[in-house]
């Protein structure tokens, strides 16, 4: 299969699979709570329903409020499409840089925080201020972790990192493990999962992400929800591409290898959904001011990984 086909396929697959991942997480959580839970396809129905509904926009809203969902969805989608999911595709590989992806997500976050402030409700402002509080520590932490990874692999290009880890005989690597732990923690923060934020809550005062999107409805909300699902898919794909790249089909591989990669990718998604749901069930949400400490731990893990690398190289 040609690179371009794989690339296009991955982009479409990312968009198509994202609600499924959210549905799987919700279903697993429901099962763990001894509830029956909605079908894993419910997020698709929700998005379809929202697309049909009228979008109510506040009189106080500026163009930022209505433009933000499209921008957020686009930025998140591009970021998610750049991560190798089941095959290496070098179609956009020059763009598939770790720092580019983080930049895309950061600008999506910026747009959402602006939209939260734009309508001038107290909850929007509350959510935006909390989101920015989290981001001030989370973003440097991510960059440090990328730095650690690029020191190990000698590149910030995601494809090369994945290929390096897939092929190189690096064995159990302490810095790699530290980077994995740090990125997993940040994935929880970035996606607003428990213990940082509760995506299922109805309590306005405790919300972070939900508080910013409280005023959205109809197709705007559908875009926001889809972007949130895509972001979760992005982090799952990223973690599996960097730390569990086995099964990723090489560039120009046969259909059989791509099929294998695809099947493995599904397994990875399901595994991630179950892990996330189990983790969320077993922990209470922390106080807002504890979150920077939590992200601080991720930052320290990144620093530790870097220091260990430098120390081990100098000998």
């Amino acid at each position, binding site marked *: 299969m040609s690179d371009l086909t794989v690339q296009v396929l991955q982009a479409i697959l990312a968009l198509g699979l994202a609600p499924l991942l959210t549905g799987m997480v919700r279903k697993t959580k429901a099962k763990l709570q001894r509830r029956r839970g909605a079908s894993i396809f419910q997020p698709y129905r929700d998005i379809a329903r929202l697309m049909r509904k009228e979008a109510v926009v506040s009189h106080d809203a500026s163009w930022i409020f209505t433009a933000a969902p499209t921008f957020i969805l686009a930025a998140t989608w591009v970021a998610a499409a750049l991560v190798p999911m089941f095959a290496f595709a070098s179609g956009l590989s020059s763009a598939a840089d770790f720092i580019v992806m983080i930049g895309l997500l950061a600008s999506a976050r910026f747009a959402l925080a602006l939209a939260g402030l734009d309508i001038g409700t107290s909850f929007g*402002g509350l959510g935006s201020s909390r989101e920015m509080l989290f981001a001030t520590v989370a973003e440097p932490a991510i960059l440090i972790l990328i730095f650690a990874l690029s020191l190990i692999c000698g590149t910030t290009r995601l494809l090369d990192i994945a290929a390096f880890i897939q092929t190189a005989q690096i064995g159990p690597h302490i810095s790699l493990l530290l980077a994995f732990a740090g990125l997993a923690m940040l994935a929880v923060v970035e996606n607003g999962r*428990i213990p940082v934020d509760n995506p299922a809550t*109805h*309590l306005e*005062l*405790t919300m972070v992400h939900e508080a910013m999107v409280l005023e959205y409805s109809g197709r705007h909300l559908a875009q926001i929800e889809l972007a949130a699902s895509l972001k979760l898919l992005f982090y799952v794909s990223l973690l599996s591409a960097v730390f569990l790249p086995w099964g990723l089909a090489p560039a120009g591989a046969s259909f059989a290898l791509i099929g294998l990669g695809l099947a493995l990718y599904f397994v990875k998604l399901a595994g991630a959904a179950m892990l996330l749901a189990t983790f969320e069930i077993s*922990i*209470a*949400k922390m106080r807002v001011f504890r979150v920077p400490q939590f992200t601080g731990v991720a930052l320290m893990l990144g620093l530790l990984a870097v220091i260990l690398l430098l120390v081990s190289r100098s000998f």
Partner: protein
Amino acid sequence: MVTLSDIVGNTDRRWPRVEVARDVWEYARTQLAEGKWDLIAHWGEPDMVHVALREHGSGTTGILSLSARGSFPSLGRDCLPARRLERAIRDLVGLIPEQAPDTRAWLDHGRWSMRHPQGTPEQPAGPQPYAFLPVEGESLHQILVGPVHAGIIEPGHFRFTCSGETVVRLEAQLGYVHKGIESLMTGAPLERASKLAARVSGDTTVAYSTAFAQAVETACATEVPARALYLRAIMLELERLANHFGDIGGTCNDAAFSLMLANCAVMREHVLRTAQTAFGHRLMMDRVIPGGVAADLSTAGQSAIAALLKRIRKQFPAIVALYEDTASLQDRTVRTGMLRHDLAMQFGAGGYIGRASGRSFDTRKILPWAPYDTLAFETPLLQRGDVDARIRIRIAEVEQSCVLLRQMLDALPSGPIQAEVVPRAGEGTTMVEGFRGDIFAWLRLNDDGTLARCHLRDPSWFQWPLLEAAIYGNIVADFPLCNKSFNCSYSGHDL
């Protein structure tokens, strides 16, 4: 020094009511201000105001009444818990508390079809702007929540003034669920009034029905059969179990720990199904009636309750252990929403809220009624007054309710479950321990058995103001947690 029993006289009645002059009323105010007497209830009639009191130490209880022509001396000048009650008297009856420190309307937002529904009805004045207490200071911002919330909960408006995330003032504005229950009761026959009393606050329907029935029985000097008294107490404890399970799970869920909610919801459902089997209604609504109970407990019902107790004994310790061993959850509940002991005493906070802050007031112990006077149980008491303490009090109360149910099942007398209530003119007063705390009921009957007037005082009257105190200095994201740990009734305090 004049004691309460000097004023109300020596009587074998538990709640003697005497009409007093203004100087005695003012004396009562000073005693309330010094914390020597507790304010139990405060309500009005078109030409009279009443205050129910309890003396510390001696434990004397009694009601003072002052005839009022349009106004009465405010107790709220020195007695904080009386303030909202006086504002409600003004809204409902139209009597004006003289020199009252707070003259804002409380329940009447100007949207009722009439003013003073329990006094002389007047044309409504139309919606009035509500003057919230002023806040001054740099970098403060306000967050307005409600009255309609994102979840399916009762309506109430909360206004937070925050410095960053820290709450510096919370002011609640309630009164969005006015049903006119006390007005509807006036002139209603007993059967209808009893149904109305059962609907004051749906979650604590047994306690309200029991309070109403006991007040009627006191007024009519009805001897209730022993079996009926036991069945009432069984229902009351089942109701306590169901609500405490719901609250323990609900509070933990507000810290996003849904596993506790899932487990507690299962337990609550078992309690409700047992109630359905035993008494034919999940919430046991209208099962307690004046004169006795409406549903007898069959052998099958008894074994259902016994099975429930066995299940709780088997499964509840694991739920408690889950609560205690989850560090992330303890981190949220411990030292959150601390209610000071002196405030709990000052406001006479009942139920788990008072008991978590060191105020050990349990009507079942202090003003016991049959069969509680012969049963062995303990009132749990903690001092810290945080969310954790309120959860732990509930956990201990669940265990005590099981102890009580066990004893009652073993000693359940046989015999009739109803006595005839022979209506006569008279007054009846009583207090019952619902799951939230002490419910006070007072009523006056006409000769024909219709109600001349009924007043029901929910424990939440003295708990809502404390929530505002408990949240002070906490972060705004912890409010839902504190609120659920208080779980005050919106409906019960807005009749």
